[in-house]
């Protein structure tokens, strides 16, 4: 309890000093004539201050749970091992360990690769083997979320332990965690992710001890512990409830949009109907009024099922006048048009393509073609969700990282989550820079997709604390822009003497240093005993990646462009013996520019072109700090893992059972 008090004192101190510093910067020290660098700099500083506030909120009430109670009596559990293309031996090793879990359970391998050799291996081990049902053929597959959603309807355990293919569970994993479900409102218990193939110096920053520690404990304090996709136990009923709620929402939204579009198409068809005789006029008119009634009924809150049933019946009647041969021709014509309602390949979000809709309604469609296209439009989004493999998708498919979106929806439904701080499964981290970068990019993109699609700050059902906890993680992925400014500002000063502030004088130093120090001490105290430096380095050194994640996620959500999604390989990529210049050139360029700037700055001071020793001194130190941060990427680029298992793994497995207090 003493530590929590110290943390709170430091949080207050940091925020008071930070607010007064940033306030002083905005009101008294922005050099507006150099606004093009001065404004970005003060904005980057404000970004960092907001980050401090969010961090402060996170660590304000860290929840250090001890032991869980005894598991509920007769709890039935399915252990689900998800795999796509990982080596069969790796999955087999995980399945063996899963079989050895002590609490009664049924083990399943969820093979999205549908590989015969995987099936044989599962049969030999005596574990269940599941692949997608035929319903998924020609429909969006939704990656891992789809794999789990498929399995949810083929298994029946009360609880689900989810494991990635490389996550070897400890035999006691269920005994240690199931007890938290004695609270009927708990939907999720997340345990840490910890990697066995990482050396002590962890050059790729794979371990996330700050996250799987103070941050998760802090989020837990606000009932916002995150689901991280693996090493977690979920309550089936909670997931199923999400599935139903999501289904209802998507059906309502889809039907509303489709009815709106149908009315536009029919309005246009009505104009051209006269040329096609009185029968066509009658058919279009009847369907128009049916669409009108359906929209009204939906607004009145009548059940969607009835509204669409009535509308579909009306459409059936309207098109009964069609000769079958015409219908074939019309369908062929329609197939050539771009689909107006489509499903995002990767995320499964329903896309109503306004452009295609306009195209559809602007084409001189014959009345019969219009009726048929309206029927097809409605069918795609109707209560049977013909556009999806299964009507219910309990695991959220809104983002490439299904975990965060699913968890947020659980919290919005009023469920509770638990972070159990004990390593109960160990996995394999990426062993080369390229793979690691792919993985980070995917996480960042997924998180930002959730931010853009389901902004936590405005989600109904979340408490203020939960909103902030989700937003804090998303906010941290915007750091790339700030990092660029933090590198550019000293360069412009040292090389060209451009001042973004009124002066880098004593006033500046006296206000900045206490804030900086308080912040560092807060980090040291919160992260006492765990290595936080790597994470701090990567949060800035991967600036090109974070910026790319922001750009691609925004293009995906607003421009419907693909993300370029890749499954993270669990095995090492081959052919990386050379220095991967392609991956780190932005950082390399930044280092060259920063170094040149230091030299230029010193020369300018020596020749008298620059006059402020403090100014040059502050900026040289600043650049040195930037270089120290970025250097991690070169260490990572040069890193070559040993081909054999590290000796360290013995030590690590020995203390892996320990709860970090």
């Amino acid at each position, binding site marked *: 309890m003493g530590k929590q008090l110290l943390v709170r004192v430091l949080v207050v101190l940091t925020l008071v000093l930070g607010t007064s510093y940033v306030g002083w910067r905005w009101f008294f020290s922005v050099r507006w004539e150099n606004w093009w660098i001065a404004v970005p700099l003060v904005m980057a500083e404000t970004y960092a201050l907001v980050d401090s506030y969010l961090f402060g909120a996170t660590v304000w009430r860290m929840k250090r749970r001890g032991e869980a109670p005894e598991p509920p009596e007769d709890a039935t559990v399915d252990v689900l091992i998800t795999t796509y293309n990982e080596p069969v031996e790796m999955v087999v090793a995980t399945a063996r360990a899963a079989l050895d879990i002590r609490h009664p359970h049924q083990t399943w391998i969820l093979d999205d690769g549908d590989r015969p050799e995987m099936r044989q291996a599962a049969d030999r081990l005596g574990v269940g083997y599941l692949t997608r049902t035929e319903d998924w053929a020609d429909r969006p597959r939704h990656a891992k979320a789809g794999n789990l959603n498929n399995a949810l*309807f083929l298994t*029946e355990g*009360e609880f689900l332990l989810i494991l990635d293919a490389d996550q070897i569970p400890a035999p006691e994993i269920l005994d240690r965690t199931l007890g938290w479900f004695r609270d009927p409102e708990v939907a999720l218990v997340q345990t840490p992710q910890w990697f066995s193939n990482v050396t002590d110096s962890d050059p790729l920053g794979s371990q996330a001890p700050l996250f799987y520690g103070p941050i998760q404990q802090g989020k837990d304090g606000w009932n916002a512990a995150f689901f991280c996709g693996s090493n977690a136990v979920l309550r*089936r*009923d*909670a*997931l*199923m*409830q999400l*599935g*139903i*709620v999501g*289904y*209802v*929402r998507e*059906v*309502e939204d889809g039907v509303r949009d489709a009815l709106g579009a149908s009315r536009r198409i029919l309005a246009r068809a009505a104009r051209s109907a006269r040329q096609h005789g009185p029968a066509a006029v009658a058919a279009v008119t009847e369907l128009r009024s049916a669409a009108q009634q359906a929209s009204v009924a939906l607004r009145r*809150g*009548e*059940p*969607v*099922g*009835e509204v669409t*049933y009535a509308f579909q019946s009306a459409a059936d009647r309207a098109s009964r006048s069609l000769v079958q041969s015409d219908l074939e021709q019309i369908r062929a014509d329609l197939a050539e048009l771009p689909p107006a309602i489509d499903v995002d390949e990767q995320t499964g979000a329903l896309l109503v393509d306004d452009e295609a809709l306009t195209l559809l309604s602007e084409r001189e469609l014959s009345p019969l073609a219009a009726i048929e296209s309206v029927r097809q439009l409605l069918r795609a989004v*109707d*209560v*049977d*969700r*013909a556009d999806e493999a*299964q*009507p*219910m998708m309990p695991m959220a498919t809104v983002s490439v990282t299904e975990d965060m979106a699913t968890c947020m929806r659980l919290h919005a439904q009023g469920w509770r989550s638990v972070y159990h701080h004990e390593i109960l499964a160990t996995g394999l981290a990426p062993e080369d820079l390229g793979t690691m970068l792919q993985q980070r990019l995917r996480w960042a993109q997924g998180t930002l997709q959730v931010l853009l699609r389901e902004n936590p700050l405005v989600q109904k059902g979340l408490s203020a604390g939960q909103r902030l906890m989700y937003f804090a993680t998303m906010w941290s992925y915007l750091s790339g822009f700030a990092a660029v400014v933090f590198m550019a500002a000293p360069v412009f000063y040292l090389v060209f003497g451009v001042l973004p502030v009124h002066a880098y004088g004593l006033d500046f130093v006296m206000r900045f240093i206490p804030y900086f120090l308080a912040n560092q001490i807060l980090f040291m105290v919160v992260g006492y005993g765990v290595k936080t430096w790597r994470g701090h380095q990567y949060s800035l050194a991967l600036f090109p990646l974070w910026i790319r994640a922001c750009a691609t996620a925004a293009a995906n959500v607003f421009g419907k462009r693909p993300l370029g999604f890749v499954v993270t390989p669990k095995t090492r990529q081959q052919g990386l013996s050379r220095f991967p210049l392609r991956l780190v050139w932005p950082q390399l360029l930044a280092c060259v520019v920063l170094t040149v700037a230091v030299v230029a700055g010193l020369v300018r001071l020596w020749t008298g072109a620059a006059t402020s020793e403090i100014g040059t001194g502050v900026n040289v130190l600043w650049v040195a700090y930037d270089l120290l941060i970025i250097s991690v990427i070169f260490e990572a680029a040069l890193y070559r893992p040993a081909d054999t298992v590290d000796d360290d793994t013995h030590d690590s497995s020995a203390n892996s059972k320990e709860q970090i207090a």
Partner: protein
Amino acid sequence: MSTIEVRTEGRQAVVTGPPRLNMTAAPQLREVLAQTVAHGSPQIVVDLGGTTFVDSSGLGALVGGLKTARQAGGDLRLAAVSDQVMTVLTLTSLHRVLRPFPTVEDASREW
């Protein structure tokens, strides 16, 4: 073991829900609904008069049945819903899609 009864009459069928429609009974109900549709009766009323408990898995089976029935040109409707079941329907807002009818006759009136 089976507490799920089916009465078919041409294209129409009445399926009686089990007393506890939970994650154990859900797969069975799903199967019965699929069979009923497959045997040519896609207009189904699920009579929940004897069902005192339903969980989300049970609702999942009903949604699955609705999909199967609709795709065969039929429909699935609920009848005689108890208070507990109504609470779960409201909690998940499934009543926004599936209107519960007071009796089996009410549910199948328009067919």
